[in-house]
């Protein structure tokens, strides 16, 4: 089945299936969402207005049997940051859309009337229907009801109450192979889908397969690629402890943001660590190892059960656990799991919302350490859309402005994630220069600054940090276009067979002959496209800065401040 663009106009309530323009053919995932947003969205438009467009794209290798290729990208102008935005997740949607011949979905316009809609995509057509039953319902209810209507094999892309209420931390959730949820978390893209009045998108299963130009070459490259992933010791640790294995090492390095970014170590770190979580999961008959999309061989997800051995949450990530744990000083994994589950159901970003809770704690809205209070606010304020719930649901910057707090850890109004930039300078460069606001996944310098992957660069020194962040941001933009999980990067950085095999798979899929240099050029082109959009929206290098307090408040235990100069930061963009 040839790839097509599925365009959905929510003003006219019409759909069309279009040829893929030649300029877009070589793109997938983030490269495609950013290319389309840059081509079709006015950079100065209101992100929640009719002129913004939400683009959903599987990656270049999605739908094939390539290991770990099931990530789906959502892109738009972000209502949280005002920049271009891409957020990706696992689940089943990417592979299903690719097999239906969908290169990308473009959702544009805005209904004139106060009605909600759902969208069904199958082998025949794209259909818009009015939706009434599920309006106001949580994501789990959407998945359950969609299962009753269409069958359990349908893929689902959905928003919860946060997206319906256009909260700026609202995410887009993707159904996973077990009927649970994965999240395109960052930047408030759920609010964009909510502004389009689309409650959910259902994707029908198909027996169709994506075309592979050279199946034999593809099989061989995938064999080499898969072996590189499986053999990598980091993959093995991820399958045992999940991403939460990081709590203890980042704490040891003095870079675990604690008590709303006022310290770098958390006394309760062992209680929320990956090691402790592993033991709890095993003791309660959960699953330490679990895949978020079919074909994942790393399996960093897990199933975390409550004390009664009943399912509580899955995809219980380091970032979420750090944010509710160390940053809010909650040392109880069960309360953090409850909050994680609530946020999945409400459809709100665990990083943005939990960092916002930390700022709210500093403002005195609730006490540091009050995990019950976090759950109460999620249930009674955010899910209900009270004024306080909307302030917190619009993110850390929103809480800081509403309550006059000056220690507000955001860049371009997006919450800084789980690594303090004072104690890991490379990640500070990524937060500052990322085209999408503070986001560790844009250029994960922690690999080299802390974990000894891809070399070693002293996290506290200035030397080499800009180059490190630049190289990783370029590589990440390319990986995010393939549909691959970013965790392939750990193998790619240290195993010489990994990246060539990935390039071979892309070539075998499309019958082309890209080189590794072409892939690097793709990454650079994506970054430049995104930056040009931001500049046209009014952003300048003055926006590529960390908040003032990072320069002024020394972070214990190393008692370091953010000391990269403006000139050093701006040198990030010195590449052609």
């Amino acid at each position, binding site marked *: 089945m040839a790839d097509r663009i599925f365009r959905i106009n929510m003003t006219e309530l019409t759909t069309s299936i279009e040829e893929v323009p030649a300029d877009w053919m070589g793109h997938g995932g983030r490269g495609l969402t950013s290319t389309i947003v840059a081509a079709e969205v006015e950079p100065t438009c209101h992100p929640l207005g009719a002129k913004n467009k939400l683009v959903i794209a599987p990656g270049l290798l999605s739908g094939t049997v390539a290991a770990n290729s099931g990530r789906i990208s959502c892109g738009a102008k972000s209502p949280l940051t005002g920049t271009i935005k891409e957020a990706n997740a696992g689940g089943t949607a990417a592979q299903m859309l690719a097999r239906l011949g969908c290169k990308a979905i473009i959702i544009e316009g805005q209904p004139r009337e106060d009605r909600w809609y759902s969208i069904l995509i199958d082998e025949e057509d794209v259909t818009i229907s009015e939706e009434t039953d599920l309006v106001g319902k949580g994501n789990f209810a959407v998945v359950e009801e969609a299962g009753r209507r269409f069958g359990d094999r349908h893929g689902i892309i959905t928003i919860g109450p946060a997206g319906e209420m256009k909260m700026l931390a609202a995410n887009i959730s993707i159904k996973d192979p077990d009927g649970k949820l994965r999240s395109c978390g960052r930047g408030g893209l759920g609010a964009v889908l909510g502004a389009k009045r689309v409650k959910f998108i259902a994707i029908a299963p198909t027996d169709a397969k994506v075309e592979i130009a050279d199946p034999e070459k593809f099989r061989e490259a995938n064999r080499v690629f898969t072996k590189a992933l499986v053999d990598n*010791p980091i993959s093995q640790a991820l399958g045992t402890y999940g*991403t939460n294995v*990081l709590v203890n090492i980042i704490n*040891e390095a003095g870079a675990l943001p604690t008590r709303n970014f006022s310290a770098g170590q958390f006394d309760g770190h062992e209680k929320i660590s990956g*090691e402790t979580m592993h033991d709890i999961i095993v003791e309660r008959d959960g699953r330490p190892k679990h895949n978020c999309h079919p074909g994942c061989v790393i399996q960093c997800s897990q199933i975390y059960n409550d004390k009664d051995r009943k399912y509580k949450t899955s995809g219980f990530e380091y970032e979420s656990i750090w944010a509710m744990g160390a940053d809010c000083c909650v040392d109880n994994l069960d309360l953090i799991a409850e909050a994680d589950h609530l946020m999945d159901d409400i459809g709100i970003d665990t990083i943005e919302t939990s960092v916002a809770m930390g700022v709210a704690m500093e403002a005195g809205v609730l006490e540091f350490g009050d995990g019950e209070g976090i759950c109460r606010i999620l249930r009674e304020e955010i899910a209900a859309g009270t004024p306080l719930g909307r302030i917190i649901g619009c993110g850390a910057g929103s809480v800081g402005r509403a309550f006059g707090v000056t220690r507000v850890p955001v860049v371009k109004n997006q919450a800084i994630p789980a690594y303090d930039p004072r104690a890991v300078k490379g990640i500070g460069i990524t937060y500052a220069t990322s085209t999408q606001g503070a986001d560790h996944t844009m250029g994960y310098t922690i*690999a080299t600054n802390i974990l000894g992957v891809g070399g070693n660069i002293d996290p506290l020194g200035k030397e080499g940090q800009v180059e490190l962040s630049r190289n990783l941001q370029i590589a990440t933009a390319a990986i995010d276009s393939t549909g691959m999980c970013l965790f392939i990067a750990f193998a790619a950085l240290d195993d010489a067979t990994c990246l060539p095999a990935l390039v071979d798979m892309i070539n075998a899929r499309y019958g082309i002959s890209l080189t590794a240099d072409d892939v690097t050029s793709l990454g650079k082109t994506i970054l430049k496209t995104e930056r040009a959009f931001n500049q046209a929206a009014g952003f300048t290098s003055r926006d590529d800065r960390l908040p003032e307090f990072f320069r002024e408040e020394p972070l214990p235990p190393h008692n370091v401040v953010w000391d990269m100069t403006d000139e050093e930061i701006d040198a990030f963009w010195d590449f052609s």
Partner: protein
Amino acid sequence: MRLTVRLFAFFRDGRFRERECDYPEGTTVREIITSLGIDPGEVGVIMLNSRHCSQDQVVHQGDKLAIFPVIGGG
């Protein structure tokens, strides 16, 4: 001399999480790793007093040594 040794992830299996240990003056990190029955080739990151160090580093009285296997996340 006495120092604190902390182990992480599967290095804890059959060993310990944190222990006060006695070693002679001049002991290196590698010697401590070997004395614990850990293959130095399996070690990913070592931090001495919260700073990265090499296996050749000599330890001192009162140091806090953290030994991690090869791990990652994010």
